[in-house]
């Protein structure tokens, strides 16, 4: 299993440009998440999904959109990039976070700079 795969690893955008961060997992996990990591601020949840066709906002959803058309894929869309969206983005997945021994599996991250 490849686990959670994120692309691209690095990207530089100009203000106002749009892009999609790709995330796919091959573990048949129901739950998928997008976090952003700002220096010294920990990881903040942007959006999450509990299954195909179902998405919900996290703590910092403004400026982002997501979709979950399949179990495997959970892309994150930035429509009008702003400097405040410069961050490292992590995708994660889990089968059922409510279960006692569950844990998150993380992707390797996407470093995004908006200039």
């Amino acid at each position, binding site marked *: 299993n490849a686990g959670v795969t994120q692309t691209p690893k690095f990207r530089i955008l100009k203000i106002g440009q749009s892009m999609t961060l790709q995330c796919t997992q091959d573990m048949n996990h129901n739950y998928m998440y997008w976090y952003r990591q700002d220096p*010294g601020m*920990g*990881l903040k*949840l942007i959006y*999450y999904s509990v299954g195909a066709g179902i998405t919900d906002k996290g703590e910092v959803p403004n400026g982002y959109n997501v979709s979950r058309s399949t179990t495997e894929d959970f892309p994150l869309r930035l429509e009008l990039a702003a400097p405040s969206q410069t961050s490292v983005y*992590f995708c994660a997945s889990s089968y059922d*976070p409510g279960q006692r021994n569950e844990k*998150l599996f993380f*992707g390797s991250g996407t470093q995004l700079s908006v200039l």
Partner: protein
Amino acid sequence: AQRVTQPEKLLSVFKGAPVELKCNYSYSGSPELFWYVQYSRQRLQLLLRHISRESIKGFTADLNKGETSFHLKKPFAQEEDSAMYYCALRTGAGNMLTFGGGTRLMVKP
């Protein structure tokens, strides 16, 4: 609202010294606490969780509900313990994880 605080951004110790990475949380319900770790050039991964009461790579963490803390401890630090450590809180609402700001541990030879 739930919150996780890791007061130290950087902790530097010598090999063989004891290590304690601090984590405090605020949550009105019954918490589940975790420690995640990110080694250099590796992905963020689970280190341990309080409900398992386990020791992983020599690390332990005890949930202290009175002090609302979940400090990570190791009696003798090793160079390979150098990494970024994140404390995380899972709450009942949606089973989402709230992460602390992280502590970078540097173990010097």
